């Protein structure tokens, strides 16, 4: 449906009735608004210098009779060439995590974090988390040239056949994540005797059981702080453009703290204070005093600039192009001699003539006399692919403007208040749902603080035979303080954070047991053969964590290293020291051309 819509929109755009595009209107208006002959002559001079307004020229070409068909054909070719759409730690609660504290904003497209370790769970497990935000797909469509981008303000903002900046901004606020438990003990096979024993053998029916999807998360940013004008922002913008000159970077992982318990443990969430981060955890992230991080990499911007430069060089005639120079002199004279009421018509005829001549065709349009060109000039300086170059330039211009806006939005917009919902389906546990409110604010240049408040409920009512059990499993609060450290050449810009997490257990941790099937990582002794659930002693959890996040030069890989202490875990009422290690990679770099 989306593809069909794109085709319809672009076809409509390509088949517009010829007329002056909006991008040229200010140029013509400048001529009409001139109050002196010099001003008028200067404004007319700007019209014929195509390089000063290449978007105007490109749109004239695509709207001309020869440009319309070329635009449609080019789009179909592009569509055929892109048949396959292209397409980073888990939230607190899933078995393995290095994040005691949740982050507010996820990777734009995909980020994968494979983490090993556990913070509040009793059993470690290997968890892979995939997460993204809703603006990921429209962003990919823009970057691949399927759909044009319309900025919020300025040129092109009134276009309808495009994806608007405001829509992207709304979609960016909504993110999601799915965590997969990839450890071997996440799958179990149960065998039940279904036939009579024959000799020493017996027929058994095997049944698989396991929860590879251990959790799912949805997030909405309720309140964004935005600063895109202050001198502080402009300084950060300049530094972020050139990361090698000491731009501040944030190497925070894209993973979110896992939710729920580890294998065999219903520990509730290990999320405490959730950090708000932009989706890309790359070296070129910049964190300002408000605690947000740069989402857009300068690499995307630079790549788009390269494409735009190439498109400019292909579209606009070079300084030595005799077809253009001859036309410019004639058009200049024609426009100077035109009355204000005829200006638009003269310009239209002149621009159509130029388009024909540049493609090597003769033209029925008149513009200040006949062209003074030799056949050799026509052959040397014409380009039959002019409409394709115009389409490429419009596309490149749209994408570059998109990258400019993305680059600014990342640094300027910082989530302050985020609402998160986590569904956790740990192995051998009753599934839980957690609602969390995340507050994230920066202070000073390299510091930020995050607060979390949450409650978790069992998705089904626990057995009444479990004393103290109720739907409300626990409530939690957490705080995390982050400090950005000086950049290291081969390790990017590391960050150090300290976090504290408190969990009030309203209901004990409950595990589902099957007498014939042992729990992964847990050995039960003296258990009655008829017991189907076991529960642990309730108690409040206090957890402290110190984490160092290292980068790898300019890549999008991050390595979180953490140590934590807790007075107990979800099952064991004894203090525990733990170490956690992880790796995350931000796939957004794959979307850059």
């Amino acid at each position, binding site marked *: 449906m989306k593809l069909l819509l794109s085709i319809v929109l672009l076809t409509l755009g390509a088949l517009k009735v010829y007329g002056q595009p909006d*991008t040229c209107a200010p140029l013509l208006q400048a001529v009409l608004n001139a109050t002196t002959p*010099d001003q008028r*002559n*200067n404004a*007319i*001079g*700007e019209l*014929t*210098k*195509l*390089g*000063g*307004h*290449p*978007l105007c020229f490109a749109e004239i070409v695509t709207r001309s009779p020869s440009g319309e068909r070329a635009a449609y054909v080019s789009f179909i070719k592009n569509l055929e060439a892109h048949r396959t759409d292209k397409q980073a730690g888990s939230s607190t609660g899933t078995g393995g995590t290095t994040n005691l504290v949740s982050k507010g904003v996820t990777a734009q497209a995909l980020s994968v974090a494979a983490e090993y370790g556990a913070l509040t769970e009793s059993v470690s497990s290997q968890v892979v988390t995939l997460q993204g935000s809703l603006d990921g797909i429209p962003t990919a469509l823009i970057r691949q040239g399927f759909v044009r981008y319309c*900025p*919020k*303000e*300025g*040129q092109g903002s009134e276009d309808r056949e495009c994806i608007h900046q405001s829509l992207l901004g709304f979609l960016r606020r909504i993110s999601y994540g799915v965590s997969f438990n990839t450890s071997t003990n996440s799958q179990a096979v149960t065998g039940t005797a279904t036939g009579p024993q024959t000799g020493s053998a017996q027929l058994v029916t095997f049944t698989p059981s396991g929860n590879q999807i251990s959790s799912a998360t949805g997030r909405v940013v309720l309140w964004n702080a935005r600063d*895109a*004008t202050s001198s502080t*922002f*402009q300084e950060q*913008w*300049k530094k972020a*453009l*050139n990361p*090698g000159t000491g731009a501040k970077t944030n190497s925070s992982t894209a993973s979110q703290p896992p939710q729920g318990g580890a294998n065999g443990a219903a520990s509730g969430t290990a999320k405490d204070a959730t950090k708000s981060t932009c989706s890309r955890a790359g070296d070129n992230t910049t964190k300002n005093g408000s605690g947000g991080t740069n989402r857009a990499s*300068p690499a995307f*911007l*630079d790549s788009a*600039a*390269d494409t*735009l*430069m190439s*498109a*400019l*060089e292909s579209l*606009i005639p*070079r*300084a*030595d192009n005799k077809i253009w*120079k001859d036309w*410019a*002199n004639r*058009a*200049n004279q024609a426009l100077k001699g035109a009355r204000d009421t005829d200006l638009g018509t003269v310009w239209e005829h002149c621009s159509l003539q130029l388009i024909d001549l540049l493609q090597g065709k003769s033209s029925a349009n008149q513009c200040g006399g006949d062209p003074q060109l030799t056949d050799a000039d026509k052959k040397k300086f014409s380009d039959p692919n002019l409409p394709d170059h115009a389409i490429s*330039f419009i596309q490149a*211009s749209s994408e*570059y*403007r998109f990258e*400019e*806006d993305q680059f*600014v939005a990342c640094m300027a917009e910082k989530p302050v208040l985020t609402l998160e919902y986590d569904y956790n389906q740990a192995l051998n546990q009753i599934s839980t749902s957690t609602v969390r409110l995340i507050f994230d604010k920066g202070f000073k240049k390299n510091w930020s603080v995050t607060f979390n408040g949450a409650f978790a409920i069992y998705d089904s009512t626990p057995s009444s035979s479990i004393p103290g059990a109720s739907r409300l499993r626990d409530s939690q609060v957490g705080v995390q303080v982050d400090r950005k450290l000086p950049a290291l050449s081969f390790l990017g810009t590391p960050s150090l954070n300290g976090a504290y997490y408190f969990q009030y257990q309203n209901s004990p941790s409950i595990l589902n047991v099957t007498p014939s099937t042992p729990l992964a990582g847990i050995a039960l002794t003296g258990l009655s053969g008829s017991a189907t659930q076991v529960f642990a002693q309730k108690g409040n959890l206090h957890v402290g964590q110190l984490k160092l996040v290292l980068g790898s030069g300019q890549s999008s890989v991050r390595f979180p290293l953490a140590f934590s202490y807790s007075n107990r875990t979800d099952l064991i009422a004894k203090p525990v020291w733990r170490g956690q290690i992880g790796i995350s990679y931000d796939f957004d770099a794959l979307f850059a051309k």
Partner: protein
Amino acid sequence: MADCKLTPTPGDPVCDFKATATGAVTLEVKGLTGSIEFQKAKYNGTSVITAPATTITFTIVAGNTNLDIVYNFSDPAHGKGSLNEVCSDNTKLKDVDANTTAVRYVICA
């Protein structure tokens, strides 16, 4: 400070600037609304910067040549500024605004 080499020629149908002499020239972009930098710049087909910068330096050669620039604006919606020559008069050559991020100027020497 060096003598100025470039003169803007807005009324000329072909030339954006005329050069009084060949040789090295330095241009800068100044932001009036927000900050502006040269993201890419090429003179006569050759790149003259390797990273975003606020100044570029190149050597003007005889004849009609192209200066191609991709600007980057910290305020992509309202950014405005000017392109100037770094010289004794700090000549203003062109106005720059965020609606035109890529331009091809013609220098006539």
